């Protein structure tokens, strides 16, 4: 166990190196440097040059990087470019506030999510379950800043119950920010609990327990939950990590004196040293928290504990008991001894590429494919994945593609005539058929259709209609002429919100598409060269990228490249790449060993061809689901970025900046924040609903 911890800590080093190098290079690309804000009036060119030489500003990149790292190892993160205050000091004094906020929000989120998830799982398909799903759907789709502002409006200004943040009134001031920060976590965690429970509720060992006469309550509490906790712990862990490092937006809204605000200030003021230090420190925090989660696994899951046992002990045990607990690749001979088939979790272990339990059939019901799904995925499951996509990742484990659906048609032969039950439907047709019947997917598709129409309208709207001031009508509340009211310059908010679609939608779609293309390509290569140095390198890179919180990375890239639509696409897209790498790698890995792939090899098809014509098409399901989930997330991030001031420059409207514009006057001109935020929420919800519907449609088992 100690060895494992030490090894993981050692792995931190390459991650830090990669992350710091990436940031360093980015900073370097940014125009100007530390001297940009200084008052250099009156200095001669030679003096400036000499000063720069003294600071080593014109040295080659690698030299400067080396110097930075050298100081970093000694614990010196430098001082703020403009303030001169030690970066470490800034960080460490603000850390407690962030930790308190993160801690409170996690506590709140988890305390509600787990019981709620169990509650929903046990009533799957019934009204209360649907209500819970709707509730979590809303929670996941609401932009945090908007929710924060509205709650502040309601609870602080209107009702006066709670202080509006600022950490001055003792514990009461944590409540509002914690609830807001915790609600995304709450939503994600509830959904995760629900789906893990659903998965576990199907397990055979529950049937064994019932057959023993164990009371139902105990079956659920002890047997089911005990196993469901494993994936739930992942989500909690990931959420904690995200909470700790991603609170920038919440801190802004509630004026919370935490690390997030400091980062936003640093990036905004182009304080390169502080930004670099901040990113590195955040990354370290993130990765450490996930390490803790992994250690927690060992206490919950004895199979993992066995794996961490000393190699020597493990070997001895392997010889005594004729069972090898974990295998390196799918080895037919070891199939019998691979741990319990319902282990649809990957084991975090760099020695394992994938554990595949499949290639079998359910002997009891020969008509049906094996209950235990073919597997799962990649190692380092515990490393950073955004909350919403963690779920997508996890649910992949419940969708099997190669094992396909059970028999749907049993053909009875009666001489020559045949009775068939179903119309011939291709896979796509199947999916579409189920989508149509799924109310939430239908809802999602309708919403998306409406948004697309609005987008088209936005494209033909002349820009003048949204930026021309009309001061006579300024600050009007909503009315017939102005359904969303007017802003401080008298501009029609309704028109501006609609016009904003022209940016928000392409940014979201563009970013996710780039991430998908790059991610799937890299992921399938990684899976293809599984186990080699190339695979390792790719995964290290992917994890490093993933350990930088999305908004933070976005801010840094924008700061470097400047604020424009294409840059926003890049900024947001880059942070979504790791998810796609991970999902597609897992999909390809699980299919790689399939027998139809072997058959294709036997026919003489080349590996490349097999990968792209046989494997990937069958692995599309999780990728598509991830795509819709990421789309929603991309729109949220883009809104967050523009809320913080990193979006498209004025006067172009963008939803996030529209919300931000109204934030100081939320008490009086509530419409300025409410409507744009509502739009964000509905759009994101549309994509999430579709994603949910797709997941259900792709999962043949739900039809049973």
């Amino acid at each position, binding site marked *: 166990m100690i060895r494992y911890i030490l090894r993981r800590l050692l792995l931190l080093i390459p991650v830090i190196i990669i992350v710091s190098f990436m940031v360093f290079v980015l900073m370097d690309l940014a125009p100007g440097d530390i001297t940009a804000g200084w008052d250099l009036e009156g200095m001669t060119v030679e003096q400036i040059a000499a000063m720069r030489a003294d600071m080593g500003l014109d040295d080659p990149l690698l030299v400067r990087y080396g110097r930075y790292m050298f100081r970093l190892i000694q614990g010196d993160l430098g001082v703020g470019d403009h303030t001169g205050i030690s970066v470490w000091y800034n960080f460490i004094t603000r850390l407690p506030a962030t930790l308190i906020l993160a801690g409170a929000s996690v506590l709140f989120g988890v305390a509600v999510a787990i019981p709620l998830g169990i509650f929903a799982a046990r009533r799957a398909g019934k009204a209360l379950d649907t209500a819970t799903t709707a509730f979590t759907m809303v929670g996941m789709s609401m932009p945090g800043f908007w929710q924060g502002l509205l709650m502040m409006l309601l609870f602080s200004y209107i009702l006066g119950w709670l202080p509006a943040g600022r950490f001055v009134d003792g514990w009461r001031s944590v409540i509002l920010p914690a609830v807001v920060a915790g609600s995304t976590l709450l939503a994600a965690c509830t959904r995760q609990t629900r789906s893990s429970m659903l998965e576990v509720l199907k397990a055979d060992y529950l049937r*064994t327990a019932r057959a023993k006469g164990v*009371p139902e309550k105990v079956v659920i509490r002890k047997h089911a939950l*005990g196993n469901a906790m494993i994936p739930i712990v992942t989500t909690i862990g990931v959420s904690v990590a995200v909470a700790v490092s991603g609170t920038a937006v919440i801190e802004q809204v509630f004026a919370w004196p935490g690390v997030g605000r400091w980062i936003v200030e640093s990036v905004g003021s182009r304080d390169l040293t502080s930004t670099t230090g901040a990113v590195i420190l955040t990354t370290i925090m993130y990765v450490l928290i996930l390490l803790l989660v992994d250690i927690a696994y060992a206490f919950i899951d004895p199979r993992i504990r066995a794996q961490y046992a000393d190699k020597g002990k493990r070997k001895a045990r392997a010889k005594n008991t004729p069972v090898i607990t974990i295998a390196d690749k799918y080895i037919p001979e070891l199939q019998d001894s691979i741990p319990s*088939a319902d282990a649809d979790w990957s084991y975090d272990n760099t020695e394992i590429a994938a554990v595949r339990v499949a290639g079998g059939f359910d002997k*009891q019901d020969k008509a049906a494919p094996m209950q235990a799904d073919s597997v799962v995925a990649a190692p380092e499951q515990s490393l950073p994945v955004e909350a919403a996509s963690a779920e997508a990742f996890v649910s992949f484990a419940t969708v099997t593609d190669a094992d396909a659906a059970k028999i749907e048609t*049993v053909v009875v032969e009666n001489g020559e005539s045949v009775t068939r039950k179903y119309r011939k439907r291709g896979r796509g047709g199947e999916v579409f058929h189920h989508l149509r019947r799924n109310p939430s997917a239908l809802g999602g598709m309708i919403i998306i259709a409406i948004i697309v129409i609005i987008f088209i309208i936005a494209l033909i709207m002349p820009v003048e209609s949204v930026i021309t001031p009309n001061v006579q009508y300024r600050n009007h509340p909503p009315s017939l002429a102005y359904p969303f009211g007017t802003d401080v310059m008298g501009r029609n908010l309704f028109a501006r919100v609609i016009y904003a679609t022209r940016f928000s939608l392409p940014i979201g779609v563009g970013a996710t598409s780039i991430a998908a293309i790059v991610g799937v390509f890299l992921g399938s290569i990684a899976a293809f060269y599984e186990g080699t140095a190339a695979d390792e390198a790719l995964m290290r890179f992917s994890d490093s990228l993933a350990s930088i919180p999305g908004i933070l990375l976005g801010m840094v890239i924008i700061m470097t490249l400047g604020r424009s639509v294409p840059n926003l696409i890049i900024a947001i897209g880059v942070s979504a790449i790791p998810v796609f790498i991970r999902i597609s790698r897992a999909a390809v890995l699980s299919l790689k060993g399939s027998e139809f792939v072997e058959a294709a090899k036997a026919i003489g098809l080349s590996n490349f061809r097999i990968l792209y014509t046989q494997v990937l098409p069958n692995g599309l399901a999780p990728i598509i689901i991830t795509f819709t989930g990421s789309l929603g997330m991309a729109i949220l991030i883009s809104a967050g970025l523009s809320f913080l001031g990193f979006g498209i420059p004025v006067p172009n409207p963008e939803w996030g900046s529209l919300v931000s514009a109204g934030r100081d006057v939320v008490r009086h001109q509530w419409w300025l924040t409410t409507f744009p935020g509502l739009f964000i929420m509905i759009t994101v919800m549309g994509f999430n609903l579709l994603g949910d519907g797709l997941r259900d449609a792709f999962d043949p088992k739900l039809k049973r």
Partner: protein
Amino acid sequence: MEKDKITIGGDSDEIVLDVQDLVVHYVLEDETVEAVNGVSLWLKKGQTLGLVGETGAGKTSTALAILNLVQTPPGVIKSGSINVCGANVLEMKPAQLEKIRGKDVSMIFQDPMTALNPVMTVGEQIAESIRYHEKVSDKESLQKAGEMLELVGIPAVRAFEYPHQFSGGMKQRVVIAIALACNPKVLLADEPTSALDVTIQAQVLDLMRDLKEKLGTALVMITHDLGVVATVCDMVAVMYAGKIVEYGTIEDLFNTPMHPYTEGLFNSLPNIKDRKAELIPIRGLMPDPTKLPVGCAFEPRCRYAVEACKAPLEMRQVSDTHSLLCSRYEEPGFRIDMKRGERAHG
């Protein structure tokens, strides 16, 4: 069928399991799967019944119904009665059911790999059953769990290990230990050895036979393998499309099988003693369980089918112990011809 006349294998007249006209359907969104369509069977104390059939015959659903463990949506127990040690299972409340499960009637399932809770020790899983049914302390229940392990051939010290540390055959032994821990009167075993290697299968079957004799448990052995039936069972019921098509003693079924489906099953098996003998498969496929005919479900595949077979049928008695669901036997002198030639007598 007169139950009293069947004294094969049992050592008393006590009927421990009595299923009458059981009907179990699964109602899905577009259609209804008629899994079990009027099954009647019974067991006396210490007897073993083999329930034979292929996929979709309804064997597992029958067994689950006996424990009232059928998944209730979409499953529906439409009619019938199931008496375990005299009490009607279908009328019991959950609390009563929990009492008899594991204590009066136990079940072991097919796949040992997924039947055990991966995060609980093996000993704890056995002990749990004991604690719910017997008034013993935790310590005593673990002690007893250790004894059960020894009984199934596993050293008691391994009670502290987790399922993943055991191989397939040993896992199945643990499952057996759990099922027998409280000495139930009836044990339902659903294809307990299908997932195991041949030599391990032999070990586990012998173990089951020994335990059965030692503890006097009545056993329903669900299987598709006629060899398993020959090894462990006293009585046999052959199921097809949710109905029992032939019911009798081992000698009845193996020496004088009468139903065309049973004949087909035997003819499909390679004969060890005559490797060159041709296999005669049953042509066609299993019927669609959502569209079962009114008459004989086997009729489309039957070599001996005539028009009359399409009409509804009734179980008929051909001897004290042997009964059959086949209209052709109403004709005097009708017999299947067992084309493969004589099966050697045991």
